[in-house]
């Protein structure tokens, strides 16, 4: 951590502080990756219903063309990320193991924009802070929906729904999430340094759409350059930049709301039930681009890092590129690479194949080496209670694990299994190395039945 890190004490209760390991990719500026020979655009990249393909094989598409349209209220359309020719529909496996239909596009040799020009097109140029009143809340929501915006922090919840709070729950605060508490990941950090203006413009637009009185950007103190960059850009606006004590899982929206506003989101409810809307910094920037320029979400910044990758980097990636393409761009895997994780090491999913496409929710690819991966052998639970001490949701993970193992749905419910956010703090500290998150997921299914 830098010596100029501001002294920040604000944070949520409990949680853990894993080794940050952000140094690997921390200083790599965002670079636009060359287009792969082929992209496969999954028709489900969000939480909600799968899209319907709107293109036919052999059809030519340009970047930004709709290739799948949302047919349900909770869904977001998907767009072509490259110029090319549509191929026959196929299936892909998402990082979470789900099989979904996808539109493959053979990428044309000449792209309208590539490299630095693409980067400049996405994040550069003027993103105004004034005169935003000409965008009506309804127009902002429509632009978000048309652009296929979803939460880029990982959960991929459609953004236009967040921006349309029901009347019974007035929104007073818009939080912009720049915590990036997962170890290794630095994409948001780089984005805040490189593109503070789109982030802030997006935050102000979201404020207009939700009617929030206050806008706060929460950043952890371990990103001093991002904090400086945002503060400088935010001068003269009403956006507050709040510094938080680094801790995991601060980027979880319930934890961020607790840390900044001391409010608890009721179990099973959404932030808007306590008058808050939370957007990731990347989502805010994409919202600005969608509203101000009418451009859809077709690229995203992805951190490729970890001890198992030769050249860690932060990349601007066309959605639908394969993980293999990213890894090859980063010099390939090292010999001791053990796991390829979509996301960070605390909550990410391991990939069984490198052909998995990058989706809107892919914040990073963490390649862990043998040395970095947990390895210790599992013993019986010694009931030390460390999992209870660190659980940010105030649950008793050991009992949830026990309930799942015993198939005891009643015990799982009595211990509020549904309130678990699966952050993994419990399993991280467990001396017995129990796979608590896996067991709790099982317990959730059990408790619903």
């Amino acid at each position, binding site marked *: 951590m830098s010596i100029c890190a501001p002294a920040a004490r604000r944070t949520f209760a409990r949680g853990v502080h894993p080794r940050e390991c952000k140094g690997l990719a921390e200083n790599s500026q965002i670079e636009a990756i060359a287009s792969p020979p082929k992209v496969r655009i999954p028709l489900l990249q969000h939480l909600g219903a799968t899209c319907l393909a709107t293109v036919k094989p052999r059809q030519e598409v340009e970047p930004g063309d709709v290739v799948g349209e949302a047919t349900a209220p909770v869904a977001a359309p998907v767009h072509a990320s490259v110029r090319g020719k549509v191929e026959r529909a196929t299936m892909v496996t998402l990082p979470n193991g789900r099989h979904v239909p996808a539109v493959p596009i053979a990428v044309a040799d000449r792209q309208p924009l590539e490299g630095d020009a693409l980067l400049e097109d996405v994040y550069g140029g003027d993103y105004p802070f004034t005169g935003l009143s000409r965008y009506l809340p309804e127009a902002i929501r429509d632009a978000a929906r048309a652009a296929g915006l979803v939460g880029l922090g990982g959960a991929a919840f459609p953004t236009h729904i967040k921006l349309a709070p029901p009347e019974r729950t007035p929104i007073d605060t818009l939080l912009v999430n720049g915590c990036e508490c997962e170890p290794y990941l630095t994409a948001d950090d780089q984005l805040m340094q490189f593109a503070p203006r789109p982030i802030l413009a997006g935050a102000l637009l979201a404020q207009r759409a939700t009617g929030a009185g206050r806008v706060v950007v929460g950043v952890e103190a371990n990103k001093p350059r991002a904090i400086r960059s945002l503060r400088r850009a935010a001068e003269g606006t009403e956006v507050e930049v709040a510094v938080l004590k680094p801790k995991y899982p601060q980027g979880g929206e319930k934890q961020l709301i607790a840390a900044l506003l001391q409010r608890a989101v009721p*179990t099973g*409810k959404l932030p808007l039930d306590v008058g808050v809307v939370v957007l990731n910094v990347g989502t805010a920037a994409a919202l600005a681009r969608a509203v101000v320029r009418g451009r859809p979400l077709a690229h995203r910044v992805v951190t490729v890092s970890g001890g198992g990758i030769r050249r860690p980097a932060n990349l601007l990636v066309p959605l639908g590129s394969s993980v293999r393409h990213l890894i090859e761009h980063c*010099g390939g895997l090292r010999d001791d690479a053990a796991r390829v994780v979509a996301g960070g090491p605390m909550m990410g999913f391991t990939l069984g194949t490198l052909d998995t496409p990058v989706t809107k929710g892919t914040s990073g690819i963490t390649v862990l080496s043998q040395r970095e991966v947990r390895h210790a052998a599992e013993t019986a639970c010694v009931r030390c209670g460390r999992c209870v001490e660190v659980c940010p949701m105030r649950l008793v993970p050991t009992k949830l694990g026990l309930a799942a193992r015993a198939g005891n749905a009643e015990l799982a419910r009595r211990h509020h299994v549904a309130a678990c956010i699966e952050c993994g703090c419990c399993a991280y500290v467990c001396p017995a*190395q129990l796979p608590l998150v896996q067991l709790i997921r099982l317990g959730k299914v059990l408790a619903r039945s």
Partner: protein
Amino acid sequence: MPASPVLPLIEVAPSPHVAEADSSTRRMMIDVLIALLPVLGIAVVVFRWFAVVQVGVCVLACLATEMVCCRARAKPLSLADGSVAVTGVILGLSLPWAAPWYIGVLASVMAVGLGKAVFGGLGYNIFNPAMVGRAFVMLSFARELGAAGYVVLESSLEVLTEPTPLMAAEEVTRAMGVEGLWPLFVGHLNGSPGETSAVALLLGGLYLCFRRSAAWAIPAGMILSGYVCAEVFYAAGLTMFPPLYHMFTGSFFFGAFFIATDPVTSPVIRRGQLAFGAGIGVLTMLIRVFSGYPEGVMFAVLLMNAAVPLLNRWTIPRPMGGPVAAP
């Protein structure tokens, strides 16, 4: 030249993919052994070979019993986690230094066999194994483990000819007058090898709490409630020992930091741990003052062990955001 991304075998596993460094069951047990070093040191200084033999016999007997039990249950041998060695050391330190070898062996067999293996081994036992073993021999060999077991008048070591500070026969104590607190604190008085020096116990105990290998709430609850109880009983004239005397004598600190804190047999939730410790403190004082036994920690721990499932159930925390709304 990009390396082939196909070849290294990539694993698939549930998150989280990283773990806290140096966090393992084995490490917790090693912490207990480290924390016991000052206590062992004092024990060896005061009781010489008596302490070495007693602890050695118990550790070896515990390990041997575990081996037999694992073989009998057709389970892989797991001495490496260190939990059995910890049971042995604690048992050895809690028995009278003069108890004959077969008492140590019997106590160990009972501790590991009856206290642990029959419940399913590490993590599944309800009662503190060392205390199960000790209770067994205490009830079976009342003479050797009673007050007389600590005094050998013909011993060459002077300390061993003195009565223990908590001896039941009140007239003995009355005749001596109440000891000053300092010798109890430093610990060159007679007693079980593990309980003589409050300062050594405090040192090791604080290390354990600092390392989080013991839950601080348990000793905190026990010492606080034990002190309050002792104060009340003293004020009411029910005991002739002042409260601090009760704290520094017998196995009170040993129990607070090393016996009650056995994670397997104590609650997992902070409030439960406080209540558990407080319960042991109160029971210890009740047994010391009102029963025929001079010492109460062992029975107090075993009784509270039985209450742990209930405490865990009573103290289920309210999740952040409240309980799940009824559908």
